[in-house]
């Protein structure tokens, strides 16, 4: 099988942290059904059994010893102990960690994200729907069946809005290579720039949809970065931004979605993007039209 997309593909061996929990177990089934190579799961003190045919271990150390090196893990453990799970994954050599967990304390996040970066480990999230390389590997809580395989990369700060965009693309015949949620918290493991660079290197991805929202300046920074790229390093990007009508100073669901200290409003983001030639859709249904325009097909 020809692999496609970024970070994960059909050969990625995946571990589920918190596999015996309600959500962990349910999502394990979904991911396996999609064809994801789930090789092991962990729940401390519950090692020895199986969940949907996947062996359960007490520690990642044990899982790696028995299953060999593991490429990626997905974290379904509660917020208060998620950092511990993530350190365990990093220290056991796992290079992609998908932290689905919502509500992790800010300073924990800052600490483990910095630690991961020094180890060359990619944290997807926290507070992310996950990552999906279509028809290859689903490490997410996304409804993968909505995604058609194709050449559009999606990078998003949002969950459900990603599904909406994917559905709109599919309706117009556009498929997706990889869809990745970078997470809705104040601090995330990946930003738009880093993710774009991965899509740039993926020869199957021809265009990119950036799904932003109010709060922070990740979109503005991406616009500045994109403007300075040499033409050979530019793939077409279009954007859609949520929160045009959100009031300042209020947290809109995501910890990171807040206009504060005069920063993070919709207008600044939209103007920055449009100034550097990235069209911004007003509605999800406009996304495929803009993609059609920038791809010229």
């Amino acid at each position: 099988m020809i692999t496609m997309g970024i970070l994960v593909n059909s050969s990625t061996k995946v571990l589920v942290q918190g596999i015996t929990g309600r959500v962990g177990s349910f999502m394990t089934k979904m991911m396996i059904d999609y064809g994801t190579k789930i090789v092991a799961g962990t729940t401390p003190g519950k090692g020895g059994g199986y969940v949907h045919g996947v062996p359960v271990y007490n520690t990642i150390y044990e899982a790696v010893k028995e299953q060999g090196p593991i490429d990626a893990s997905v974290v379904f453990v509660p917020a208060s102990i998620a950092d511990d799970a993530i350190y365990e994954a990093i220290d056991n050599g796992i290079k992609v960690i998908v932290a689905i967990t919502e509500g992790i304390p800010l300073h924990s996040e800052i600490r483990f994200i910095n630690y991961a970066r020094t180890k060359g480990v990619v944290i997807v999230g926290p507070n992310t729907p996950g990552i999906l390389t279509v028809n290859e590997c689903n490490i997410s809580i996304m409804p993968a069946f909505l995604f058609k395989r194709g050449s559009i990369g999606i990078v998003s700060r949002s969950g459900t809005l990603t599904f909406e965009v994917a559905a709109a693309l599919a309706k117009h015949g556009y498929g997706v290579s990889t869809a990745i949620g970078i997470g809705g918290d104040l601090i995330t493991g990946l930003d738009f720039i880093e993710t774009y660079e991965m899509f740039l290197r993926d020869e199957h991805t021809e265009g990119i949809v950036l799904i932003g929202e109010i709060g922070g300046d990740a979109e503005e920074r991406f616009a500045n970065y994109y403007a300075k790229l040499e033409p050979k390093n530019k793939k077409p990007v279009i954007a859609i931004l949520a929160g045009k009508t959100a009031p300042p100073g209020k947290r809109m669901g995501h910890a990171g979605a807040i206009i504060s200290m005069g920063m993070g409003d919709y207008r600044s983001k939209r103007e920055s993007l449009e100034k550097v030639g990235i069209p911004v859709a007003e509605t999800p249904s406009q996304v495929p039209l803009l993609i059609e325009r920038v791809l010229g097909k």
Partner: protein
Amino acid sequence: MKLYEFESKEIVARYGIPVPRGRVVDKPEEALQVAKELGAAVLKAQVLVGGRGLAGGIKIVDKPEEALQVAKELLSASIRGERVERILVEEKVCIDRELYISLTVDRAARKLMYLVSEIGGVEIEELAKKYPEKIHKIYVDPNIGYVDYMAREALQALKLPWTLLQDLANIMKGMYKIMIDYDAELVEFNPLAFTCEGKLVALDAKIIIDDNSLYKHPELQKLYGREFSGFERKARELGVGSYVELDGDIGIICNGAGITMMTMDLVYYYGGKPANFLDLGGGVTRERIKKALTLMLSHPRAKVILINIFAGFTKLNEVAQGIVDAVKEVGMKKPLIIRFKGTFAEEGMRILKENGITEVYTELDDAVKMAVELARKM
């Protein structure tokens, strides 16, 4: 969660950082008494909104007797829509220069960062626009923390004498400790006063606590939600999700922060105005949607309710049943416009229709347009 100035200063003082002498009061007579103890005094309305100074929330009384009348006025005022329930009465400090210092989170660098400026007393965002070169940034690695050289850099940026190095170092070290001990997002002294006596005093203090960390601080968790308006508080008590009050007439219930904001945006885009933001979060259950809808059906301003659920992990047949439950219990008091997509959408739509709920759509734009149109007609 924002803390009030007086709460922030209690914490700050506990970490050995100098603050003006003073006390928080909620009665004019108490204000008078504190002012008498202090002599010339500053009366500061305790509110969580910004821009208090410009809005008349800070008054100086040179004679203590004036404090009674000034306190009366402040305690019956509102600052930018927020009722003043307490005032902080403090000694008047003789100020040589007003400085700025804060410790905050730099999202891009994923690090903490001190911001210092020799210009204080104005909002940092304004300063950043007018004199970006007057703001000195010092990044703090989360795994190393405060290091003494940072105080030396800050001292230079603040143009303070070297004799104050140890004092400034103690302030910055204290700010870092507060940041970590209280799981704060921001610790800000604006202004930090360089007094006529050559000392440093935190004239104002602002601490914002990370909501995700409140569970570690029971004494703060109790306070959470106090600035919420009625429906924000109710939504929180019901545990139905994130709720923000807005001023329009279309009630909104969705799952996911991005899609909820986008639905709000679309309402505006098609000419309507949302009454609220209500994000149910992931894995919507029958019970949760029932509670959420019941709440919104009682919303005084919402003329129509727009429910937009795009289901991945959520099952739309269950959501449909929750909607039916709510309508059965409290009656369909106002028009419901529903958009279902994703897992078990067809079954969900069938359940709705069987129960007389007919405004059900597959496409988001169609649903929003209908909600706007209905609201306009009512």
